[in-house]
Each structure stands twice: as structure tokens, then as C-alpha cells.
């Protein structure tokens, strides 16, 4: 999305830019949508104790997480940490979760999430998993939707900027990962000016239908362009993936000008079933690479990293029929397939029309060899041969299109800050509504699948300016909810979002809410440092490492008085939450800890590493308000000088501690 500003310096952009400014000025009209505000309020009002109709999963953009919201209320329900450490629940801080953020570049505490994708069965969102990309250090994560937590992350080798990712096939066989930046493959020290000669693009298909088994099934080397977005074919076009790309000029500097020269770039049509056949014939080579796969087992609840050492790779031209280029104006962002699988809508950021390709026409064109040439052995089809139609004068800066399953498409326009509804087949614009301001992606629940549930549309805006109470230089990001159940789109609600809501998915709540894990069963836990009852608690020392196996239950820790720790020891607090009841997490924090806290779900074991720096007595306490006596849920750790004779011990009073006992107790 950040590619937009290039537009201002375009040769012919003066006119467009002033149009953009004009559009911006026009957009500053009062926030009326022709709907009485009382009606809008009613439409989004979810009474206390009632549930929203949809879960919405909105990428956090540069916060690296996913925000979960209810629709239509816009209420934020949760942040799911994915690619960034999350102090609130210890993700990326606790010993069990750190490995999720390991990469071939080491531990990385942050990334940039863009495109969540729900898993599908028969072309319909099924609510099992959510996938999302890490843009900066290329990775794809799988989030389990019974636990709302990240369970698996696969690094993508030979990628630079995993933007065109992860788009899911109609039975979740694959998610796709295409590289935004072309890079040398393998990545070595070469002059940047040798871009055209040495750099490569690539499109990877990740096997995704089994947790714990995410793997790059095949990686297709492509010309060194910038790959942007994608959408899987569906129905009649199942077996294909359509990917947009820009910078077919192959610029490596000042892309805003240099990558905006060609009138047309491409949508790539990739036939992954043909590639599977090529793989059977042995076209793929296992090429050396080094990248990580991180997985959290459901029962140990401990993330493990595995280094993978090769990737199945091939050059596009080695598998004839694997990929075709569809010329598309101009620097396309979205490549969106309608619910029938017939049309591929390209959002050409700099185009004055919305071009729509036809899948059946494309097949005919391929059969008739209606090629205008080839690029590195990839046939380029003739524009007219695949074109179904063009939406004329739709607006400025078309980006992304979703569908309602009733024959209409909805396209976002960044520059003219609006959503435009148009009809598939006749290509006529039937309605347009302003957004406040500069919409990027938009989202209809199921709007990218074969079965949209088109009651609402959410626009995710890049700029909020005057829409909310100001908060210094950085303003809130925002989403807007529209009612699209009728002929005319109606703005219902603005709601702030965390990070940058880049793209989102939404799904009927009923597909998810009754499958929720309420707690982890102690009896089934395979956590290596679990303490199953207070009787099993204990301390042990191994050189300078001290293991504290402790439990938390309303409303005490066991042990809660620990002595014998020495300055410089590495203390590992393995805390098991013994509760077996919903909504009773316990927290654990200790003064001076340099990483974070633990938030431990019922039945879960989490480990905090702590290295005390000076002697003294250190308070520890439960950080999650667990019970009426939460404030009593505390203890002390005594830290002595190195070499001290204080024996390692941990106790919890077994019953009432009388004043006399308390006074005489301390042992030395």
C-alpha cells in the first residue's frame, strides 16, 4: 500500500494530483450518509450481554498483530500476538513462546502484518485457522481459532517483503507467498545496479492444510518484478492463483517514478495443479536454503524451532503452462476473483479504468496461443484476449475489490477516498460512498470466497485527520462500517483500530464461538516443567541455574517464600496455573524482571527467566485480578550475595501463621 505517493511525481500526474486534492477537499463534507443517525445507531447497537454477529480479524499493520473485533458494534475483543512481542500476555517473553519469533536472522521482536486469510472448505470460510503474513522478515503464521493464538510460523526463503501473502486456496491446500522485493537468489553480496541480471522474484506455495506441517511445497522463480497481492481461483477457476505485480520496469531506485512508466503491468495466472504435475515429473530441485519453522504443540504448549535446509524450487519456464502474464493497467494492487471464479478484477492504482479479466476467455486465449510475446519464457497474453470488460471512470486510485455474491463488486479508491459499487457483466457504476479518508483495502465477510455474507462492508482507512479527538501527531487508525444489504451503501459507524488495519477477514460468529477452548486440561498437559499439584512443587539448583517449579491457584502461589537464590543466578520460574475453570488466568511478575510478566491460562505452564542483579528481598505477585483475594496473591524471593550459605528453599505456610511463629521463623 505504501507505494502510492509515487503517483505525485508522474509526468501526467499534475492533473491527477490536483484531482486528488479536489477529491480530498470534497471528502471533507459532514459525516452524513443520508441515514438518520438514530437508525445507524440502532443498526450497530449490540445490547449489553448480547453478542456481535461476526468476528472480524483485522491486521494490525505495523504493530505485527491481529485485532479481533465484533461486528456490527466495532468493539475490540482481543489482540492476538503474532509477529511482535506482546507484554500483555508474555508472548515472545516467556521461555515457552520465545521460539515463535525465531528466524534465520535470529530472534525478531517485531514485524508488519498485512493480509489475514481465513481457512476455507469448499470455497467457504470454515473458521478453523487464520493465516497472516509478516511483511518485513518474510513469514506466514497460522492462528488456531479454538484458542485464538499463533501456533505455527514458517519463514519464506528467497523472499524480500512478503506482501503478496497469504491467500488461501478453496480447500486450504495452499497459501501463497509472493515476494514484494526481488532479491538475489540465493541472497549474496552483489551490486544493486545488477538488479536486472542478478535479482529474482518468486512465488511460493505453502502447504497449509495440516497444523505443524506447513512447508514450502514449491517455489517458482519469476522475473524480478514486485509481486503485490493475490487471490485464489475458485469454482471453475479452482487450481489457479492470480497475482498482481508492478515494477515490470525492473527499477531498483526511485520506484515512484521509475516503476510507473509502463502503461500496463501484469496479473500472473498461476496454474498450481499444473505445477503439481510438473513436480511429479521431477522438475523441482531441492535447492539449499536456510529458514525456520516454529510450532507450538497443543499439549506441551512450548514453541520449538526447526531449521529447514532446502526448498523445492524451479524456474517458471521449466514447467510449461504453469504461469501466464495478463497485461493489466497500471501498477495493479488487488487481483480479486469473484465468487463464481469467472472474473479477475485488477485494481490498477494508476489506471483510469478497472480492468476485469475473464477466466474462460483466458483459457481460450491460451489454447489459441493469443500471445504478444514472452518474458523469460513466460507467455504474455494479449490484453483484449482476456479482457471481459472495463469499468469506466470509476474513481481515482482503485486498489482492492470484494464481492457480495449478488452480482456486484465493491472497489476501494485510495485517492478519491470512496467505495464504488459496480455490476459485474455490465461494468456500470451503481453507487458510491465517501470514506474518511483514503481507504486501502475493504472487506465484506466472506467477500473473497465463493459464499459472501454481504450484510456489511468495512473500509480500512489510512488517514483519520478530523474524525476523532486528536491525540498528538499520531492519530488513531480507523475502520468504517457500511450497510450494504440494500441498493445503496449506508455508512453506519466509524471505529478506531489498533495499528494499521491493513486488511481484514470476518466470519459468522457461530462458526467459531462454540469451539472455544475454555482451559487446558492438566491431565492432558505434556508441558515439560508442569507441576500438577502443590505437593509436586520444588526448587533445584544446577550450577548457576535455579529451577522453581511452582503453582498458582486462587489465591496463592506455592511456594511463596523462596530463599537461597544468589545474585547472578538464572532463575527459571516454571509456574503452572492449577485452575481448571474458564476465565481464571493468573499472572506472575517479579520486581526487576528485565523481560516481562507471565499470563498463565488455566492448566498451562509458563516460564519466566529472571537474573537478579543485587541482594535483597524481591516481591512477586499475581498480575491478573483472579479473585476476591487477588491482592493477597503474592510472595517474596530472598536474593543473597554469590556464595552465600543460605540454603535453597521454598515454602508456603500450610495454615494460619500465628504472630509468634511469624516472629521466630526465619531460618539462616
Amino acid at each position, binding site marked *: 500500500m505504501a507505494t502510492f505517493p509515487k503517483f505525485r511525481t508522474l509526468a501526467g500526474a499534475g492533473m491527477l494530483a490536483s484531482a486528488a486534492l479536489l477529491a480530498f477537499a470534497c471528502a471533507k463534507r459532514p459525516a452524513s450518509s443520508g441515514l438518520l443517525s438514530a437508525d445507524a445507531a440502532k443498526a450497530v447497537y449490540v445490547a449489553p450481554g448480547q453478542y456481535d454477529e461476526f468476528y472480524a480479524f483485522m491486521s494490525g499493520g505495523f504493530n505485527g498483530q491481529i485485532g479481533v473485533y465484533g461486528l456490527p458494534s466495532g468493539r475490540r475483543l482481543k489482540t492476538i500476538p503474532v509477529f511482535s512481542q506482546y507484554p500483555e500476555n508474555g508472548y515472545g517473553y516467556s521461555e515457552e513462546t520465545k521460539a515463535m519469533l525465531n528466524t534465520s536472522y535470529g530472534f525478531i521482536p517485531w514485524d508488519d502484518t498485512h493480509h489475514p486469510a481465513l481457512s476455507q472448505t469448499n470455497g467457504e470460510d470454515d473458521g478453523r485457522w487464520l493465516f497472516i503474513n509478516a511483511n518485513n522478515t518474510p513469514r506466514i503464521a497460522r492462528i488456531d481459532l479454538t484458542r485464538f493464538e499463533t501456533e505455527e510460523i514458517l519463514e519464506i526463503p528467497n523472499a524480500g517483503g512478503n506482501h503478496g501473502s497469504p491467500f488461501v486456496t478453496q480447500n486450504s491446500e495452499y497459501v501463497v507467498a509472493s515476494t514484494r522485493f526481488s532479491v538475489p537468489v540465493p541472497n549474496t553480496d552483489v551490486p544493486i545496479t545488477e538488479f536486472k541480471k542478478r535479482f529474482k522474484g518468486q512465488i511460493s506455495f505453502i502447504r497449509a492444510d495440516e497444523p505443524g506441517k506447513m512447508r514450502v511445497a514449491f517455489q517458482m522463480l519469476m522475473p524480478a518484478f514486485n509481486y503485490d497481492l493475490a487471490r485464489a481461483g475458485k469454482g471453475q477457476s479452482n487450481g489457479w492463483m492470480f497475482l498482481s505485480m508492478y515494477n515490470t520496469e525492473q527499477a531498483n531506485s526511485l520506484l515512484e517514478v521509475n516503476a510507473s512508466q509502463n502503461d500496463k503491468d501484469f496479473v500472473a495466472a498461476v496454474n498450481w495443479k499444473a505445477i503439481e504435475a510438473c513436480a511429479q515429473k521431477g522438475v523441482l530441485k531441492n535447492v539449499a536454503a536456510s529458514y525456520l519453522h516454529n510450532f507450538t504443540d497443543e499439549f506441551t504448549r512450548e514453541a520449538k524451532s526447526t531449521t529447514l535446509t532446502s526448498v523445492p524450487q524451479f524456474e517458471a519456464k521449466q514447467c510449461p503452462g504453469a504461469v501466464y502474464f495478463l497485461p493489466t493497467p497500471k501498477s495493479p494492487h488487488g487481483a480479486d476473483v469473484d465468487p463464481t471464479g469467472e472474473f479477475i478484477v485488477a485494481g490498477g492504482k494508476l489506471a483510469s479504468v478497472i480492468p476485469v479479466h475473464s477466466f474462460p476467455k483466458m483459457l481460450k486465449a491460451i489454447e489459441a496461443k493469443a500471445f504478444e510475446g514472452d518474458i523469460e519464457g513466460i507467455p504474455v497474453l494479449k490484453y483484449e484476449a482476456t479482457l471481459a470488460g472495463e469499468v469506466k471512470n470509476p474513481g481515482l486510485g482503485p486498489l482492492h475489490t470484494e464481492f457480495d455474491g449478488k452480482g456486484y463488486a465493491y472497489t476501494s479508491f485510495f485517492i478519491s477516498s470512496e467505495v464504488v459499487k459496480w455490476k459485474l457483466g455490465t461494468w456500470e457504476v451503481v453507487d458510491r460512498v465517501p470514506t474518511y479518508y483514503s481507504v486501502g483495502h475493504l472487506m465484506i465477510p466472506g467477500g473473497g470466497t465463493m459464499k459472501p455474507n454481504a450484510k456489511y462492508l468495512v473500509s480500512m482507512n489510512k488517514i483519520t485527520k478530523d474524525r476523532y479527538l486528536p491525540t498528538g501527531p499520531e492519530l488513531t487508525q480507523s475502520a468504517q462500517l457500511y450497510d450494504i444489504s440494500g441498493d445503496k451503501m449506508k455508512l453506519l459507524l466509524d471505529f478506531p483500530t489498533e495499528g494499521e488495519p491493513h486488511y481484514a477477514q470476518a466470519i459468522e460468529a457461530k462458526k467459531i464461538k462454540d469451539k472455544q477452548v475454555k482451559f487446558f486440561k492438566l491431565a492432558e498437559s505434556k508441558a515439560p516443567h508442569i507441576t500438577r499439584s502443590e505437593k509436586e512443587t520444588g526448587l533445584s539448583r544446577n550450577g548457576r541455574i535455579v529451577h522453581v517449579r511452582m503453582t498458582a*491457584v*486462587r489465591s496463592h502461589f506455592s511456594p511463596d517464600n523462596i530463599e537461597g537464590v544468589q545474585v547472578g543466578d538464572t532463575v527459571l520460574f516454571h509456574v503452572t496455573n492449577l*485452575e*481448571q*475453570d474458564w476465565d481464571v488466568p493468573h499472572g506472575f511478575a517479579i520486581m526487576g524482571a528485565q523481560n516481562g510478566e507471565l499470563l498463565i491460562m488455566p492448566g498451562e505452564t509458563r516460564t519466566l527467566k529472571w537474573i537478579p542483579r543485587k541482594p535483597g528481598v524481591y516481591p512477586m505477585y499475581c498480575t491478573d485480578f483472579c479473585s*476476591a*483475594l487477588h491482592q493477597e496473591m503474592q510472595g517474596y524471593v530472598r536474593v543473597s550475595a554469590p556464595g552465600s550459605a543460605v540454603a535453597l528453599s521454598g515454602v508456603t505456610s500450610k*495454615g*494460619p501463621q500465628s504472630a509468634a511463629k511469624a516472629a521466630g521463623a526465619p531460618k539462616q
Partner: protein
Amino acid sequence: MPKTARILVAVAALLMSAGFVLPLWRVDLIAPQYPEGLGMLIRVNTVVGVKEQDLNSINNLNHYIGMKRIEPDAIPELKYMPAILGTLVVTALLVALIGRRRVLYGWTVAFGAVLVAGLYDYWKWGYEYGHDLDVDTAIIKIPDMTYQPPLIGSKQLLNFVATSWPASGGWLLVLASILVAVAVWQSVRGTAHAATAARPA
């Protein structure tokens, strides 16, 4: 014994035998923090949670008021209740088989005594749990407050509303009792008719 009375007693025996598989009694606890409720099912040989972890959760909550943990293995009644129920079922079948009125009357008295004793024992069990509180470890101590669940019906116990009712097996036991009562009534009436019929004209 009239034939219908014999059949009724046999059916009652079958209904009672359902007590081996179905829970006899159910206690539900609802509080603001537990809108979904916690519950216990009392079976002939054990006490279990309505949901898998309910008993554990109830015990954890009870520690605040110093109540003993409810440990099915430590409750002696649960050890011999299956034998008592088994004896009732077998003897009821024998009553139906023998078909003698006096045997039925004698058995009914014994059956009634067992039911009354059982209810008394259950009440006493609740009384002991509700009153025998460990005042040293109790965290919440309210003068004169006890926590005996009701035998039947609802009662507010701090933030919880405790409701106690027969469960499916218990209701079948009630139905069995009614059948036995009908059998007795028929037998008594049958005797009266026979006496009238036997009177010389």
C-alpha cells in the same frame, strides 16, 4: 396379590435399577461470576460434576469458607449404596414373583424405611458439610452463617443460589414409589373385595 400389583412391583424394580446408571440427585450453583452455573450429580456410587471440572471448581470455591473438600472416595455411603439399591431391586422382583400380600406389605415398610433413611442421611451429609467449617483456614467468616444446601428447593448461600432437586434416577425412584403405593392400594382393595365376596349371603 392381584396380577396388576405384581406387574407394578416388577416395573418398579426395573425403574429403581435405572438408579445404577442415572444420577439420583442434582445440586446446581449459580452466581454472578458463574452465569453458566456449576453443578454436582449424585450417583449411587459417586459424586461428579455436571461439567467435567465442576466438582473441582466447587471444591476450590469452598476453600474460601473452610468447607471440607467433597471427595467421593471418602464418602462411606457411596460404598454401600449400590448394595442397598441392588437389594431393593432384587427383593422387589422376589415380591412380584412370590405374589403374597404380606410379603408386599413387609417389603413396602422396609422400602419406605430405606427411602426415609436415605433422605435423612443425605440431609445430614449436607448439614455436616455446611456446618463443619474449618474456622482456622476459612478466609470468609460470617458470624452464624452456615452453608447447608437445601434438600429440595433453592437457597442463597453468599453469592451463590444453590438449587437441589432429584435428578433423572431420583425421579424414577419417586415413580417406583408411586407404583409400589398403587400396588399396595390394589392389594388392600383386592383383600377387601375378597372379604366381601367371601361373606355368606
